[in-house]
């Protein structure tokens, strides 16, 4: 059987998302919307101190509150008392000490959410505050917070001659603040105890199976007795990779024999998930007088906070992408991530590449100024391309269109400006002191999991005849977090099988793992798995003979499951050498800003971008990813930072942690390139992360161009611009 004319709604079309109608009507069931008969509400008691010894806990006053059904601590956990994505070092509930402000100590189930919160506040915990370790610079030599000491990982990369010298040298120190993912739908879920002694959990997450395995370990249940179904997810951006309320709700449900719902408020959400690592980076670039890079030396320090989360992988990314998408013959890179008593840090969109891109792009501008050439020209002269070698010694196999991307943003006409002053209507300037600046940046990162991890996704595809018409059902455990993965799965099935009626079933753990909705990998990995399963369905149809599809299927549905593994990758050796990544994604940005140099206010006038996506499976969704990613990059450049003072968070609210509004976000002029990656399904790359990587340095470069200020730290504050 061959597919002659693909039906409408296949790949390459801006197909509407299947969950769109319920989302606009308010009917879509997010994990915070779930409800069950006789349901209880859970609440969490958290530490007010960043570091303290727990001397005693008295649950009596909480148990005495009417309407309370359970008050539990780590002592009630039947299984593993800790969890973690890479190293299980984080207590599900604090054991004898707390290592960050907001660490969970005890949990309560009650018949009303306010009763649960009130009861949690009645728990009497005797805490002996200890001096927290909060400075990552001195953390390595400080008192160990974990048995193995405070150095969580050091990645050392030596490439070419680490002691190379050059005619022109520029150096700088750069700093990135702690950014929050700030998804809109706070952590939430519903745990329902099952008759077989197991539990059914409906939750918003990024990776169902890794949640399942961790919940099962802590509850001492076999994995098959923990069944997880994806609840509607209100954004993720990395913050749902780690567990939040999963074990807590399941433990309360098993303990009380009743369904338990947990739903964080915004303040609790700031304490309930990891953040982007703050970074301090020292760079030295050496070049020839005609602008050829000779060497880059870099020392990167990431604050991992209290627990490991995905810090070791973030550290590796920071090191591997430290020099940017350039040919650098000699490099010496040392990246460190350390434990402190600050909030735990882990995954956020861009994952290590965001921090170093801010630094390497600032360095490229500084170098261009030192040599006296145009910053775009310096980038062009050093741009990597297909076949280039990375500092890890690996060869870039796929197209690496850095020059094309730079040309695209350089050639864009300057926009017609709608006008307005930085700060909006309330600014009393008449234009005096307002300066325009233009800045450029380019960045890249890996797609998929790296360093030898067996990264795969599973898809089950079933072709049947229902009501005389063919029906394709696609079943995966891949998390739709807003990015449009459900649409992509439908489109691929339509394209491969020529059947218009395709349904994507709810994601759950009754099918094999799809891996995480992270690392810009799901269209590549799960899209690839759906493609493989559809090809297997086609093989079966061919085996059955020729003729009409409906007749070939008849009463015997075809039901196949396939795994898609990407090309193997390899660990880095002690000199940071190795073919550690499967493929890369690239983007470039140009920012135009107006700056009120007297008030330190910035208005971003326009962002132009070019990004290679290999193949745009759904062009409208690709644009949505690019625009949304830029907004998060702009936020890091100009406003977003979790303020941590002595280990305590000072701004855990949307009143004090600002994310861009529609007034802050300018129009985006974008060009999408589709240069196929020969190793990828349909040639596609990941889309989600590159927009967040180089948008930040482009905005900062534009503000530097307008003001002449050095601006070595993001987010930029008004006083950095004004110079006070």
């Amino acid at each position: 059987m061959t597919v002659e004319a693909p039906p409408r709604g296949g790949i390459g079309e801006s197909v509407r998302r299947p969950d769109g109608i319920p989302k606009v009507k308010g009917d879509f069931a997010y994990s915070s919307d779930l409800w069950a008969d006789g349901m209880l509400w859970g609440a969490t008691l958290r530490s007010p101190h960043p570091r303290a010894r727990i001397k005693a806990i008295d649950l009596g006053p909480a148990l005495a509150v009417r309407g309370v059904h359970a008050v539990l601590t780590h002592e009630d956990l039947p299984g593993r008392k800790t969890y973690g994505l890479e190293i299980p070092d984080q207590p599900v509930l604090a054991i004898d000490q707390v290592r960050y402000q907001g660490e969970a100590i005890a949990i309560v189930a009650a018949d009303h959410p306010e009763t649960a919160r009130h009861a949690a506040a009645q728990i009497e915990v005797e805490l002996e505050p200890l001096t927290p370790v909060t400075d990552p610079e001195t953390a390595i030599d400080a008192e160990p917070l974990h048995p193995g000491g405070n150095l969580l990982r050091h990645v050392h990369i030596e490439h070419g001659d680490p002691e190379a010298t050059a005619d022109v040298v520029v150096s700088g120190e750069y700093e990135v603040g702690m950014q929050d993912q700030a998804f809109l739908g706070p952590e939430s879920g519903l745990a329902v105890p099952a008759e077989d002694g197991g539990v059914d959990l409906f939750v918003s997450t990024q990776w169902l199976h890794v949640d399942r395995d961790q919940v099962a370990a802590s509850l001492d249940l076999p994995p098959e007795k923990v069944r997880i179904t994806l609840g509607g997810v209100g954004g993720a951006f990395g913050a749902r990779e780690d567990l939040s309320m999963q074990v807590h709700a399941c433990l309360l449900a098993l303990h009380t024999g009743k369904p338990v719902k947990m739903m964080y408020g915004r303040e609790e959400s700031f304490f309930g998930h990891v953040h982007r690592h703050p970074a301090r980076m020292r760079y030295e670039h050496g070049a020839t007088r005609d602008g050829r890079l000779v060497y880059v030396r870099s020392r990167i320090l990431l604050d991992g906070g209290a627990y490991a989360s995905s810090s070791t992988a973030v550290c590796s990314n920071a090191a591997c992408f430290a020099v940017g998408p350039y040919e650098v013959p000699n490099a010496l890179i040392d990246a460190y991530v350390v434990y402190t008593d600050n909030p735990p840090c882990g995954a956020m969109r861009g994952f290590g590449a965001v921090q170093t891109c801010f630094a390497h792009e600032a360095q490229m501008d500084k170098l261009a100024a030192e040599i006296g050439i145009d910053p775009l020209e310096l980038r062009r002269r050093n741009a990597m391309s297909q076949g280039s070698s990375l500092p890890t010694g690996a060869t870039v196999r796929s197209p690496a269109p850095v020059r094309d991307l730079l040309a695209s943003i350089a050639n864009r006409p300057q926009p017609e400006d709608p006008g307005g002053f930085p700060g909006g209507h309330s600014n009393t300037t008449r234009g005096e002191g307002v300066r325009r600046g233009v800045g450029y940046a380019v960045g890249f990162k890996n797609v998929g999991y790296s360093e030898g991890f067996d990264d795969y996704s599973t898809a089950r595809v079933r072709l049947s005849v229902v009501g005389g018409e063919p029906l394709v059902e696609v079943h995966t455990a891949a998390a739709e977090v807003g990015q449009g993965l459900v649409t992509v799965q439908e489109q691929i099935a339509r394209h491969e099988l020529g059947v218009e009626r395709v349904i994507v079933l709810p994601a759950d753990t009754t099918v094999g793992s799809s891996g995480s909705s992270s690392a810009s990998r799901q269209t590549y990995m799960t899209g690839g798995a759906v493609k493989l399963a559809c090809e297997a369905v086609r093989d079966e149809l061919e085996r059955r003979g020729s003729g009409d599809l409906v007749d070939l299927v008849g009463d015997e549905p075809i039901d196949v499951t396939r795994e898609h593994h990407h090309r193997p990758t390899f660990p880095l050796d002690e000199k940071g050498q190795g073919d550690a990544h499967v493929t890369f994604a690239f983007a470039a940005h140009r920012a135009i800003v107006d700056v009120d140099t007297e008030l330190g206010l910035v208005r971003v006038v326009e962002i132009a971008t070019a990004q290679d996506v290999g193949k745009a499976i759904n062009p409208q969704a690709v644009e949505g990813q690019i625009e949304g990613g830029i907004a998060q990059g702009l936020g890091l450049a100009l406003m977003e930072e979790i303020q941590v003072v002595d280990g305590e968070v000072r701004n855990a609210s949307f009143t004090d942690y600002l994310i861009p509004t529609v007034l802050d976000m300018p129009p985006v002029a974008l060009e999408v390139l589709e240069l196929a990656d020969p190793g990828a399904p349909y040639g596609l790359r990941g889309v989600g992360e590159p927009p967040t990587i180089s948008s930040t340095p482009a905005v900062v470069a534009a503000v530097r161009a307008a003001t002449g200020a050095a601006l070595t730290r993001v987010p930029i504050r008004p006083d950095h611009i004004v110079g006070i």
Partner: protein
Amino acid sequence: MGLGVRLTCTINGEPREVDGLWEGESLLHVLRERLGLPGSKNACEQGECGSCSVYLDGELVCACLVLAGQAEARDIVTVEGLAPGEDELHPIQEAFLEAGAVQCGFCTPGLIVATHDLLARNADPTDPEIREALAGNLCRCTGYEKILDAVRLAATR
């Protein structure tokens, strides 16, 4: 904790009565947890994000900032009450889908109600007017470009 308050009001044109409220419950909690109307979303519960935007006697408010008792005898319209029928969409809802303005969708109900309010006051808003009107609604996924497209599109219908 006393659970003794009764609320009587009109929601999406229907008279509704609900008993046994705790005095501190917000209108948002009552809509979501007691009346089966979870369309208004709980993203910040402090009036910063606009995800729970509803009409209270025709005025756009954040339901999280309204005590349930304040809604006594008043007329409330939520996102669930905008479409003309069960299987139909309001033109604003249709425009959000067509423009690709929906990703995770958590901000969408609030933005749709806020857009409804804007276009009721100003049928042909300029871009700065749209931005001003929607400045109280946070979205983390879209970067707002396609939301602006959706509002422009809805204004033509």
